[in-house]
């Protein structure tokens, strides 16, 4: 009952007219910024800090929570329509969202993304409210060994979910990790694989690789397949309505991914990206029609969209309860809170209940606003696909260029983008999956850091990874997930020979 009373108290604050206006402005601004190439939730929140200086802390945080949700949804739009994921959390959205858009179901894809985001966000807010204090304690018990095992699991899950060759998936993952460790080693200051150029000292930015192997490679692929001069088929947007059977179909994935996304989001460092990939791979495994994932399956779109929004809410747990930001985005939020004179942590619930419960209530309202605002806008946004193909292809190129240059201000990165575009084209032509490369690129650094820290603690003793029960369990699941396709193959072959 306590939680209910507290939530009512929170709603009292969030439903003040000025705060409702802030949620609305936040969600709207976030959606627009999220759609812009290269600008994700972090940039959107950072841009809002000066705006919130003079505000009441609860109002400031309410505005920022709205921006956060809006930016995540805005990012999904470019993933679905252009296969150009601007932020890591929406990469998995493109796997089935983009094929749906190409089939003329862009409207439906965007509507599913909006519903899935709404439900994922709402369910996870309930979790946040009920279990936040307990989960906060579990999250801190995750040491480097457990993190390393979690990252390994995340990677193997993505490799095995692809219907392409397992060996090629593993090669893509290894190459992704190789790219991620380029630059200065932060633990020793040693340069690795910089080829003597200062441009690579900071490593290669995620955005360069993601836009290269997805968006640019897609443009090249269309040019190669003669898509340049052909006109786009009409009725590219399609209906926004979901049939009863479609709702039934996505209900399960949305429910499961909400829970999964929230719990993954609670773990510092894991965040929306891992959650969305895990959500996708879990559903692909469970689904009877798993072989249609990646070809425009609505479950393959609903699952990562739900999981990434749920994870965003989950990431508020370590921030609000422990004062420890689990991701870059929540780190920016922490900075904003400190500027406003609020120190999140175990005492926040007692000292500033208005802020804590106000934010939770505003998340409910923010999710509703997201739906109300975005559903009517979908036909307008999806009009992009009605453009003649040659014009669309050239504008996608501009979109990629501005995304890369606007974040790094480096001409060298534009040339790297071209390199990754050609690599992506080669991978596509020869059946190498791109998803493991991208996820490995994101996780590689954290994986190496966790591994080295764990070994530092154990004095170089590798048994630390199997001595810890959570780490051992995660590694066993990872190995099993790699072996599962092989076992399946053997069983199938045995059945065929018997039949």
């Amino acid at each position: 009952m306590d939680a209910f009373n507290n939530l009512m108290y929170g709603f009292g604050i969030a439903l003040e007219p000025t705060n409702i206006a802030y949620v609305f402005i936040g969600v709207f601004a976030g959606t627009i910024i999220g759609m812009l190439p290269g600008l994700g939730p972090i940039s959107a929140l950072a841009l809002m800090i000066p705006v919130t200086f003079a505000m009441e802390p609860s109002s400031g945080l309410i505005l920022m929570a709205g921006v956060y949700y809006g930016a995540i949804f805005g990012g999904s739009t470019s993933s679905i329509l252009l296969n150009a994921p601007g932020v890591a959390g929406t990469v998995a959205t493109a796997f089935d969202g983009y094929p749906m858009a190409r089939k003329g179901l862009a409207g439906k894809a965007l509507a599913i993304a909006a519903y899935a985001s709404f439900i994922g966000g709402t369910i996870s807010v309930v979790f946040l409210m009920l279990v936040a204090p307990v989960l906060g304690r579990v999250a801190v018990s995750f040491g480097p060994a457990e993190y390393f095992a979690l990252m390994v699991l995340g990677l193997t899950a993505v490799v095995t979910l692809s219907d392409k060759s397992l060996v090629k998936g593993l090669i893509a993952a290894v190459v992704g990790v190789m790219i991620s460790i380029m630059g200065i080693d932060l633990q020793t200051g040693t340069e690795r694989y910089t080829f003597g150029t200062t441009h690579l000292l900071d490593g290669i930015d995620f955005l360069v690789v993601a836009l290269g192997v997805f968006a640019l490679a897609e443009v090249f692929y269309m040019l190669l397949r003669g898509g340049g001069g052909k006109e786009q088929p009409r009725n590219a947007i399609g209906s926004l309505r979901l049939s009863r059977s479609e709702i039934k179909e996505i209900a399960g994935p949305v429910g499961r991914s909400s829970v999964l996304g929230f719990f993954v989001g609670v773990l510092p460092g894991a965040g929306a990206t891992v959650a969305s990939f895990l959500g996708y791979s879990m559903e692909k495994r469970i689904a009877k029609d798993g072989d249609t994932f990646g070809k425009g399956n609505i479950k393959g779109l609903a699952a990562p969209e739900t999981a990434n929004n749920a994870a965003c809410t989950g990431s508020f747990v370590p921030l609000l309860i422990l004062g420890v930001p689990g991701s870059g985005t929540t780190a920016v939020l922490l900075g904003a809170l400190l500027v406003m004179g609020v120190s999140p942590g175990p005492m926040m619930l007692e000292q500033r209940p208005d802020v804590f419960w106000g934010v939770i209530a505003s998340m409910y309202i923010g999710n509703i606003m997201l739906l109300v605002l975005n559903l009517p806008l979908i036909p307008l946004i999806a009009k992009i696909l009605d453009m003649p193909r040659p014009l669309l292809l050239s504008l996608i190129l501009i979109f990629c260029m501005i995304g890369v240059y606007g974040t790094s201000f480096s001409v060298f990165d534009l040339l790297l983008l071209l390199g990754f575009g050609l690599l992506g084209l080669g991978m596509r032509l020869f059946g190498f999956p791109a998803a493991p490369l991208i996820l490995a690129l994101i996780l590689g650094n954290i994986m190496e850091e966790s591994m080295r820290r764990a070994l530092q603690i154990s004095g170089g003793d590798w048994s630390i990874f199997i001595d810890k029960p959570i780490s051992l369990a995660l590694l066993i699941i990872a190995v099993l997930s790699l072996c599962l396709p092989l076992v399946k193959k053997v069983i199938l072959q045995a059945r065929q020979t018997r039949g």
Partner: protein
Amino acid sequence: MTRLNSNQILGLIIALLAVGYLAMAFQIPDFPLPRPIDSDLFPKVLGFTLFGLAVMLFLEKPKDRDIPDEIGPEERAKPLLLRPWSRVVITSLAIVAYALLLVPVGFVLTSLALSFGLAWYFGYRRHGVNLATSLGVVLLLYLAMTRGMDVYLPQGILPF
């Protein structure tokens, strides 16, 4: 001698890359203070893993979907500059030119040239619509980024 299949060729290329990667990994200098794990361990593990995977790929039989389709006779009959691979090469060259001219000439003009020029090259013949759309989108992005978000984009030879 039998011809190598696509997986065997790729396996050999990746194995060569892995050897190069390992050679560089062995040149990573040691950290002056003794540590259980130094900067070179992870790259070495990655290099050997990639080499092992390359061997596995060499031994794996390619499936139909792993071999790129042949380009049809209709596409091959087109003038050289409009053939599929020419389109990829020319687009790549246009991107290189864009990258080199972006700072001296400025974002608006280079982006407009790239967008308008490539749409025309890809076969769009309504030049007025092409110019209006390219200019509109480029200006909108430029103003949104520079005025709205305070993100710097080179102005080049234009006064704004």
